[in-house]
């Protein structure tokens, strides 16, 4: 790694990118090997050592204290004091100065939990620079950003490099990496398998390097399937839907939308703009406060999760450990959950062990769950395989409407491709799919129509032929009034 260069590290999930960076930052200890900085071997016992040597890290999940202000977060650990007391005025001045020096626009007194995700990320970067970081490590920085915010971040990174900083960007978004990096290191299964100059390579070459010579097709290149046949009967039709979020504030402020049989309808938006609450209302997990709707022939008001299930709503929730699976149970027990009183999972009041095992075995084969062993505890499976179990269970119930939230978060390219293929297959068989994802690429790749959410309202509605990433991004940020929906 050279001074004043932007190095990108790419690789599939589990290839060891994040672990490597955590070693660089002193969070993990290396089992063997030597780390050299400016030609000298160094050993970081904790992040404090790494910070002292000018290494800063921006984590994938922000390491900010949401209840503190921007300035407090930035100075935490090296607070300016006067007579032993915290000198907040000076902290604000210092942080303003750092922001000005690097061209960030941040209000030092604002509480972090009131900021947008893009701004929070800037706080993270300022935090590292304020500590004198020369080497800045960014772990999957664009995973949660809109296209505009990502562009902005790319500018910021180039600016830092121009000032003589070294930036390490960890990512699996190849397009983005190619646009911004000088040099690219490819990791696979804990090894660095290649190092190339960004100017001399293409996304296809990188994808091939990432997945190895194996038979799997890189998902990045998977073509979006042709638009489905004409959509069928309306399954879901809501008007003026309002609901309250966990914090007691309105999360949905009058949403109109429709899902028909045989189409995938995407919901695009920055995290926290009501998408989660929408999914919860449709699956009976959250009650609506106003508005009306028809869901699979029944009213949406007063819906319970059990009714949603019997009407034919399937649900692949955002947080699989919280809502979709019981990690301590076996794969077959997880597959039976929710349908455990019906054949082939039960015979009268008794569990049908044989039927359950046969069905589960068939599903593990059909959905490529590895290992294909119904008896193994779910926790022993990798995240991608756990998710495949969830997808298998929900689709096996033959839902008429499938509510899917962030179905591929944290999965590697192989598993992503498989999950996407299964969702398309369900669509082609007539299921209506409502897809909520923070990953705009995923929404655009799968959806036949897209609604854009901003602050609990629909701020845009695009059929497939009118997809425009820029335009969607603007609507996700609420910089345009609701258009001709």
């Amino acid at each position, binding site marked *: 790694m050279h001074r004043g260069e932007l190095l990108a590290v790419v690789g599939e999930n589990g290839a060891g990118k994040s672990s490597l960076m955590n070693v660089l*930052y*002193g*969070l*993990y200890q290396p089992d063997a090997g030597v780390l050299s900085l400016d030609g000298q071997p160094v050993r970081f016992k*904790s*992040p*404090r*050592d*790494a*910070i002292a040597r000018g290494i800063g*890290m921006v*984590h*994938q*999940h922000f*390491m*900010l*204290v*949401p*209840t*503190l202000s921007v300035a*407090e*977060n930035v100075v*935490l*650990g090296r*607070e300016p*004091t006067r007579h*032993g*007391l*915290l000198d907040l005025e000076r902290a604000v001045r210092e942080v303003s100065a750092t922001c000005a020096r690097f061209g960030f626009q941040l209000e030092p007194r604002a509480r972090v939990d009131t900021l947008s995700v893009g701004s929070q990320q800037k706080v993270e970067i300022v*935090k590292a620079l304020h500590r004198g970081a020369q080497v800045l490590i960014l772990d999957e920085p664009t995973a949660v950003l809109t296209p505009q915010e990502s562009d902005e971040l790319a500018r910021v990174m180039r600016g830092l490099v121009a000032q003589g900083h070294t930036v390490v960007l960890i990512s699996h978004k190849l397009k983005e990496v190619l646009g911004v990096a000088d040099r690219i290191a490819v990791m696979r299964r804990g090894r660095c398998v290649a190092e190339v100059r960004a100017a001399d390579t293409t996304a296809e070459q990188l994808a091939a390097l990432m997945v190895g010579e194996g038979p799997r097709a890189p998902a990045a290149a998977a073509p979006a399937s042709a638009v489905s046949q004409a959509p069928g009967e309306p399954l879901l039709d809501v008007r003026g839907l309002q609901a309250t979020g966990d914090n007691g504030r309105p999360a949905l402020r009058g949403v109109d939308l429709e899902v028909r049989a045989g189409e995938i309808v995407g919901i695009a938006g920055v995290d926290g703009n009501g998408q989660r609450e929408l999914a919860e209302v449709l699956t009976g997990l959250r009650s609506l406060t106003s508005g009306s709707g028809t869901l699979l022939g029944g009213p949406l008001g007063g819906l319970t999760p059990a009714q949603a299930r019997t009407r034919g709503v399937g649900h692949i929730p955002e947080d699989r450990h919280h809502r979709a699976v019981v990690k301590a149970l076996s794969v077959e027990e997880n597959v039976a959950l929710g349908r455990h009183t019906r054949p082939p999972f039960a015979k009268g009041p008794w569990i049908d062990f044989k039927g359950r095992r046969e069905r589960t075995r068939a599903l593990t084969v059909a959905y490529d769950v590895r290992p294909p062993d119904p008896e193994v505890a779910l926790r022993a499976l990798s995240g991608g395989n756990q998710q495949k179990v969830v997808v298998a269970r929900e689709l096996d119930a033959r839902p008429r409407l499938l509510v899917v939230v962030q179905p591929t978060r944290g999965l590697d390219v192989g598993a992503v491709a498989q999950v996407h293929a299964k969702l398309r297959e369900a669509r082609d068989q007539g299921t209506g799919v409502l897809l909520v994802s923070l990953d705009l690429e995923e929404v655009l790749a799968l959806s036949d129509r897209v609604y854009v959410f901003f602050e609990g309202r629909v701020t845009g509605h695009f059929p497939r032929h009118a997809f425009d990433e820029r335009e969607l991004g603007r609507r996700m940020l609420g910089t345009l009034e609701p258009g001709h929906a």
Partner: protein
Amino acid sequence: MLEVIHSLLFSTLDAAPALIFAALGAVLSERAGVIAVGMEGMMRVGAFCAAVAALTMPTPLAVVMGMLAGAALAGVHGFLSIRWRSDQVVSGIALNLVALAGGTFLLESLYGPNGTPPIQQLTRWNLPGLSAVPVLGALSGHSAPTYLALLLPFAFQGLLTRTPLGLRLRAVGDKPQAVATLGLSVSALRWGAVLGSGLLAGLGGAVLSTAVLDRFEQHTPAGLGFMALAAMVFGRWTPVGAFLAATFFAFGNALRIGLVSSAPGLVELIPQGVLLALPYLLTLGVLTLQGQRSSAPAALGTPYEQESR
């Protein structure tokens, strides 16, 4: 009427410090992210050790012994919840049970069921200028802990909001990962907070047996440690808030005692048990009213594990 108010205030100021110290201890521990269910046990251990120590040494020194005993029990909690990352509620309840049973066993085998022999109470201070003033005169004639209990909450509030240490404590209770990535030690901060909460709970217990009473009794502290948790919640995890809530609860208790002694007829109308339960009912009522408007630290009760992200 003035006399009634005077005596109500006086007994509030006498009884409140134990609750105030324990409530502050609970705030300290929980703001750093460690659940403080063990307050009751730490108070009991503090009360017992102070009473026993006062048999052989000056009472102020015995109070210090009580504090150290509270901190020692808190140390066990620290080991279980910080070092071994066990469930903090279970750990706290276990401490309470150990203190309850251990206290009873030691008391009965050493001194019999009626409590430890009486000891020299902490000296009461008469503030000459003040004692003659109506109502305000209630401030005079208390022992040192009362005055400490009136000052400490504000000092603690200052520490939490105005010092680097306070900032770090708040940060470690809301997002320990952020603290760790800045190279600060999550466990050192939490250890400090837990041991400090033990000192405060031990002090609360010691005050019970050296200032409120003059011995350790079978049932000490009779649920005060739990009431301290209620005061912490009611005070929204702030030192001054917890102080006001604790004082309010103590006032409720003083009111009960005042009612019983000034209007004996009342006891015939309302069963004694109901009156005894009054402060606890008050606590329940207040928590019910407060409802969901909670402001607990975000990482409360979550052990910090370095490799989990």
